[in-house]
């Protein structure tokens, strides 16, 4: 896949505070990358630098193979940006805001499409000042997708949205990535939506990138932590606990929860069978994004 965003050693300093420290990232066409991190990790600053709103102190940003500074207008014309807590002129109607922004985009873009896909067509004649927070967020998404971008930079896109709108928005973004190969870089505090949407997750802490991995790898099966479905759970737990290659063994109503020093589920099953237990199944634990996040953000 073609690379459409490269951050090369990008840093941002506010006075004495280093908000982003030597960040290196790559995003490919059609890929969705979730940027995670605790508050103050530098996510919004990073997205701001990609969107050209925040001046970087050092480093290089390349978008669609072009220098993001020198070719800013060429680059930004192919991007859609949703900033955190988007603000709009309160006295304009929803439709008028989109038309105003379409004019600034310099393209004859259809605002009806953006209104429809974000579910704003019913309130297109309502002034922004009268919209709820969720509706404003939808308007933020509408303006980001207005010019049919190839790269979307979204800062907490589902913030303030209800469950149904969140689900629809995530499904729509996934569709954009899958069907039109739009690359999406977005930040979020919601692990579930990152799990659902992202191909890759990057974790930041204190301005540094502490982890970056494919979501599928993050959410892989952990064969060192098993639930073994077997009879005589108490006895099985005791037998396993006595073994050196077992860290912990805990009896459950229908079996044993066991953690191993290595990832050897077969050995566990063989051991229990050899001891006369009837093993009905072994379920490895699935790693969660939250664990990955906490590990990556641990000081």
């Amino acid at each position, binding site marked *: 896949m073609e690379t459409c965003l490269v951050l090369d050693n990008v840093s941002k300093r506010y006075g004495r505070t280093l908000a982003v420290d030597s960040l290196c990232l790559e995003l490919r066409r059609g890929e969705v990358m979730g940027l995670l991190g605790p508050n103050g990790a530098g996510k919004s600053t990073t997205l701001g630098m990609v969107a050209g*709103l925040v001046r970087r102190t050092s480093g290089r940003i390349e978008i669609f193979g072009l220098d993001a500074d020198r070719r800013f207008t060429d680059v930004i014309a192919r991007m859609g940006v949703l900033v955190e807590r988007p603000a709009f002129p309160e006295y304009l109607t929803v439709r008028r805001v989109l038309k*105003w922004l379409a004019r600034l985009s310099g393209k004859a873009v259809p605002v009806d499409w953006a209104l429809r896909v974000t579910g704003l067509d019913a309130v297109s004649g309502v002034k922004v000042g009268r919209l709820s927070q969720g509706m404003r967020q939808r308007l933020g998404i509408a303006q980001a997708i207005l010019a049919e971008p190839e790269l979307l930079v979204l800062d907490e896109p589902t913030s303030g949205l209800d469950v149904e709108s969140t689900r629809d928005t995530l499904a729509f973004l996934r569709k954009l990535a899958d069907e039109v190969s739009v690359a999406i870089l977005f930040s979020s505090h919601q692990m579930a939506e990152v799990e659902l949407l992202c191909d890759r997750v990057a974790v930041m802490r204190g301005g540094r990138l502490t982890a970056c991995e494919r979501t599928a790898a993050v959410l892989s099966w952990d064969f060192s932590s098993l639930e073994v479905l077997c009879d005589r759970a108490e006895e099985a737990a005791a037998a396993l606990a006595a073994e050196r290659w077992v860290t912990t063994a805990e009896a459950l109503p229908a079996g044993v929860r066991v953690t191993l020093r290595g990832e050897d589920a077969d050995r566990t099953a063989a051991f229990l069978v050899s001891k006369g237990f009837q093993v009905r199944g072994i379920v490895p634990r699935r790693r969660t994004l939250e664990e990955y996040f906490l590990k990556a953000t641990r000081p």
Partner: protein
Amino acid sequence: MTRRVLNMFLAEVTRGMRLRQTWAGVAAVAVAVGVMLARGGVARDGRADYDFIARAMPAGIGLAAFIMLLAWSACLVAPELGSGSIRLVLTRPVRRGEYVLGKFLAAAAYAALLALEASALAWAAAAVLGEITGVEFGGELLFTKEEMAFAWLGGSALAMLPLLAGAALGLFISCCTRSTGLAVSAVFGVWILLDLVKHFLGVDRLVFTTYLESCWQVLANRADGLDAEWMPMAWQCAGASLGATALLLAGAVLVMRRRDISG
């Protein structure tokens, strides 16, 4: 670049037309011309009509339009910085210099609108209530209506220059703060300070606000039956106003280019 500045300008005009303060400026200019009409009146005596125009133009353009323009241009960027809505604009294909230039062009268009309104009202009142056939004293025609029209045209053209400098001042201050209230207060504060210190420092001729009234001197003198020279006032007005406009605009662009735009 031209197309992008034009897009920015048109977007700003569209937005500006929906602002209440835009129409407050139009009302203020009408009131200023009305007050001049009520104070002096217009008679068919061969000179009172031009005398009215010569009083109405500085009141309408040099005072009312200038005040409203200062306030209007001070509200061009600061509210957007304060609310964060500027991020919507700056994530479009618009460079920051083009953003400032588009805003300035909108302010210039607003200045032109107010000047046009003041002129139209003044001339309409003079035409209806007076004769506008030239300036006469004791039956003698001192200045023809063409000469008076030229004096008015020259005054109007020159009056636009300090207005543009005022718009640039408002815009510059607006780029420096996120608070609309502070921007408006600061722009009026700077104006008052400029007018206070320029006499003491003896730099009147270098300060553009001096020409808000003095650019109408030729028209006013002719309305009184006296002749007056355009030079060197016209050059000084152009130099001081255009110089201030260029400096303030460059300053506004510089401030915007160095600014980090956050929520």
